[in-house]
C-alpha cells in the first residue's frame, strides 16, 4: 500500500509544473544570476600593483635616495607600484583618464596628486610617508648621535624586517565571502520545499480539498497516507536539491569544501526541515491555499534575508546582535552548516547546526501530526 500511494503522490508532484518551477527552475536561474554577478566581487579585494606616474624632473633625478626607494618598491614579485616616468602634462593626462591612481612630483618636498580617495591612494601616500618618516628618523638620530652613521645606521635603514607572521584561521587562506550567497540559495530551495509539505497536507485534510475528502473515505490509515506522501515530496525535493548542488559545484564552481558526505547530509536534513515546515504551516493556519502560499513565501524570504541572501553580512549582524534568531532560523542553520564545512576545521559547529535542524524538523512533524490526527467532519 505504501508504495502504491507513494508512486501516485510522486506523479501528482512531478506533474505540478508550478511547483517544479519554484523549487527547481527558479533556484537554478538565481544561481546563474548570482554567479554571473558575484564572480568579480571577491577578486576586487586582492591586491594588484598600483599604477602611478612620477614626474621626471630635475629634482627627482637629483634625489637619489628617493629614486632608489621608489625603484625598490616597484620591483620583485610583490611589487607595490608600476611606475610610469613621464612629464607633468602626460601625468595629468594619465590621471584624468584613470590610467594611474595618482602621480608624484618632487619639488622642495614630495607631493602626491590624486583624483579621489581610496585604499590604493592611501597606500601610495603611506609609502611616501614612510620615506619621509625614515629620513626624519635618521636625521634626528644623526643630529643627536653623529657616530651612529659609522655604526651602520644606513645599513639598518636598508634592512627592512618583516614584523608580522601569518597565522591562518580555518581551512581557507582566502575565505571568499561570496560563497555565503550560494549557501543561502540552497537554504531557500530547501525551504521552498515547504510547498510540497503544503500540498501533502492540502491533499490529506478533508476540509481543504476534494481530493482529500475522497482519500479520507478510503480504508487506509491516515498516518500511512501522510508518511508516504511526505516521503514522495521528500524524494522529489532531495533530487531537485542534488541537481542544484551539482549545478553549483560543477558548472558554477562554487567552493563547498571537500567533505562530500557532510554536504549531502546537510541537504538531506535541510529538505526534511523544508517539507515539515510547510506541513506545520499548512496544518496550523486554517485559511485559503493562497494565503498559506503567501505566508510560506514571506517566511522563506525573511529567513533567507536574515541569513544573508540579499545582503551578505546580514547573517553576521544577526549572529552578533540577536544570536537566538540565528539558532531558530532554519535558513540560517542550513547556510551556517555549509559555512562551517567550508571554513571551519573543527566539526562542532557543523553538528550543532545539524542537531538544531533535526530538532526543528522533529518538532514540526510532531505538531503537524497532533493537529491533523483523528479529525472527523460532520459536514464539509
Amino acid at each position, binding site marked *: 500500500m505504501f508504495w502504491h500511494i507513494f508512486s501516485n503522490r510522486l506523479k501528482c508532484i512531478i506533474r505540478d509544473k508550478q511547483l517544479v518551477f519554484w523549487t527547481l527552475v527558479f533556484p537554478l536561474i538565481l544561481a546563474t544570476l548570482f554567479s554571473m554577478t558575484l564572480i568579480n566581487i571577491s577578486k576586487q579585494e586582492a591586491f594588484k600593483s598600483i599604477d602611478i606616474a612620477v614626474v621626471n624632473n630635475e629634482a627627482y633625478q637629483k634625489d637619489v635616495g628617493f629614486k632608489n626607494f621608489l625603484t625598490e618598491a616597484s620591483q620583485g614579485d610583490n611589487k607595490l607600484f608600476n611606475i610610469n616616468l613621464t612629464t607633468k602634462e602626460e601625468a595629468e593626462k594619465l590621471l584624468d583618464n584613470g590610467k594611474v591612481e595618482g602621480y608624484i612630483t618632487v619639488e622642495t618636498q614630495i607631493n602626491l596628486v590624486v583624483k579621489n580617495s581610496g585604499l590604493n591612494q592611501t*597606500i601610495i601616500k603611506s609609502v611616501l610617508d614612510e620615506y619621509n618618516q625614515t629620513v626624519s628618523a635618521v636625521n634626528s*638620530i644623526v643630529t643627536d648621535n653623529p657616530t651612529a652613521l659609522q655604526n651602520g645606521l644606513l645599513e639598518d635603514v636598508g634592512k*627592512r624586517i618583516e614584523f608580522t607572521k601569518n597565522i591562518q584561521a580555518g581551512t581557507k587562506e582566502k575565505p571568499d565571502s561570496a560563497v555565503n550567497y550560494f549557501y543561502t540559495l540552497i537554504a531557500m530551495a530547501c525551504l521552498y520545499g515547504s510547498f510540497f509539505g503544503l500540498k501533502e497536507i492540502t491533499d490529506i485534510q478533508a476540509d481543504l480539498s476534494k481530493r482529500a475528502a475522497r482519500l479520507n473515505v478510503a480504508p487506509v490509515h491516515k498516518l500511512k497516507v501522510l508518511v508516504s506522501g511526505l516521503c514522495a515530496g521528500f524524494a522529489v525535493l532531495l533530487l531537485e536539491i542534488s541537481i542544484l548542488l551539482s549545478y553549483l559545484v560543477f558548472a558554477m564552481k562554487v567552493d563547498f569544501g571537500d567533505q562530500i558526505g557532510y554536504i549531502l547530509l546537510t541537504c538531506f536534513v535541510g529538505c526534511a526541515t523544508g517539507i515539515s515546515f510547510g506541513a506545520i504551516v499548512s496544518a496550523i493556519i486554517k485559511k485559503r491555499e493562497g494565503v498559506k502560499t503567501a505566508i510560506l513565501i514571506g517566511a522563506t524570504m525573511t529567513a533567507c534575508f536574515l541569513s544573508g541572501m540579499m545582503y551578505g553580512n546580514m547573517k553576521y549582524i544577526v549572529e552578533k546582535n540577536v544570536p537566538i534568531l540565528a539558532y531558530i532560523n532554519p535558513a540560517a542553520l542550513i547556510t551556517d552548516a555549509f559555512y562551517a564545512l567550508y571554513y571551519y576545521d573543527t566539526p562542532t559547529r557543523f553538528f550543532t547546526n545539524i542537531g538544531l535542524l533535526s530538532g526543528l524538523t522533529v518538532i514540526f512533524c510532531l505538531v503537524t501530526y497532533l493537529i491533523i490526527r483523528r479529525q472527523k467532519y460532520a459536514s464539509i
Partner: protein
Amino acid sequence: MQVFRIYFKIIKKQLGQLSIYIGVFLAMAIMFSFTSPTSSIDDFTQSKTRVAFINEDENSILIEGFKEYLGNHSVYVPIQNEMDKLQDALFFRDVDYIAKIPMGFTKGIIAGKNSQIEKTVVSGSTSSIYTDMLVNKYFNTVKLYLSSYKDITQEELVKQVAKDLKIETKVQMKRTGEKSANTGNIKYFFNYLAYVLISVIVLGVSSIMMVFNNTNLRRRNLCSPIKNASINLQILLGNIIFSTVCWGLLIGVSFILYRGQMLTTNAIYFCINSFVFTLTALSMSFLVGILIKSRNAQSGISNVLSLGLCFLSGVFVPQEFLSENVLAMAKFTPTYWFVKANNDIGNLSNFSMDNLSPVFMYMLIELGFAVAIVSVALVMSKRKQLKGS
C-alpha cells in the same frame, strides 16, 4: 469610457496584493540604499582598515604607543579573543586584519630579537597589505632607534617614533571642475527603483491585460458597439495612468526619504530618467500580459524578468563590479541604460548640453526599447486575434 472605468475596478480588486508588493519593495529599496556606500570626494581622506587588536603580552608602553599609532590609521573592532568569533568576523569582512601580539613580544623587540606579531588576514588582500605596511613601518623605526641608543627607555622610544611617524606627505586632490554633486544615496535608490517598477507594473498591468485578453470576454467585447480601437485606447490610457501613479508614488517616497538631496538639479534628471524607464516597464508588462495565460505563470515571469534584468544590468551589484561578459550581455537590456544614465546623472555637477547629451542618449535608448517591445507585442496580439483564440 466604460472600459476605462472597468480597468480601475479591476485595479481596485487587486489593490491589496499590489500594495503588499509596493510595501515590501519599498522596504527593501530603503534598506538597500542605506546599506550602500557613500563617498564624499571633495577632500582626500585616508582609507582606514578594520583591525582586531589582541594583546596577549603585558601592557607595555611600547605596545600602547603602537596601538595608538595603528589606531590613527585604522578602526579597531572589539572582538572577543575566541577562534570562531575571529574567524566569522574575518569571513564577513567585519575585520580586515587580526593582529595578535604574542606573549613576550615587547621583551623580544627591546632585546633586538625578531619578534613577530601574529596576523590573520585574507591572504593577498589590499587592506592586509596596507596594514602590514603600517606595522612594519612602526617597528622598523623602533628598531632604528634601538640599535642607535642602547639604553633608551620605552617612553623615550615611543615619543621619538611617534614624532617621526607624524610626518605626512602633502596630497593634492585634483578637481575636475566644480564641487562634485552629493548624490550618493539617491543614486542607489533610483537604481533600485528599476526593480520595483518592473515588478509592480508587470504584475499590475499583466493581471489586467489577462482579464481583457480572456478569449470569451474578448469575443463578447468585440460585439459591443464600441470600436475596437476605442477599447484599446482606453486600456492604454488606463495602463499609462496606472504606471504614472506607481511612479509618482515612488517619487513621493523618495522626497520623504531624501529631502535634502531631492532638491537638486540632479534629482530632476533622476525623476525624468525613471519616468522614461516607467514607460519601458509598461511596454514590457504589455508584452507579458499578451503572452501569459494563467496567474501561476504570471508570478514566475514577473520574478524572473525583474530579478534577471536587475542582476545583469547593475541594479543590485554596481556596474563597476560586473565582468565584461555580463556587461556586454546587459547592453541588450533597457535596465542597463537606465542604470548607466543614473550613474552619469549622479556624477553631474555641470549641466551643460555637452555633459547632458549622453544622458539623453541613454534615455532615448530606453524609449527605443519601449517602442520595440510594444511593436512585438502588437504583432503578437494581432496574430493571436487572427488565430481566433
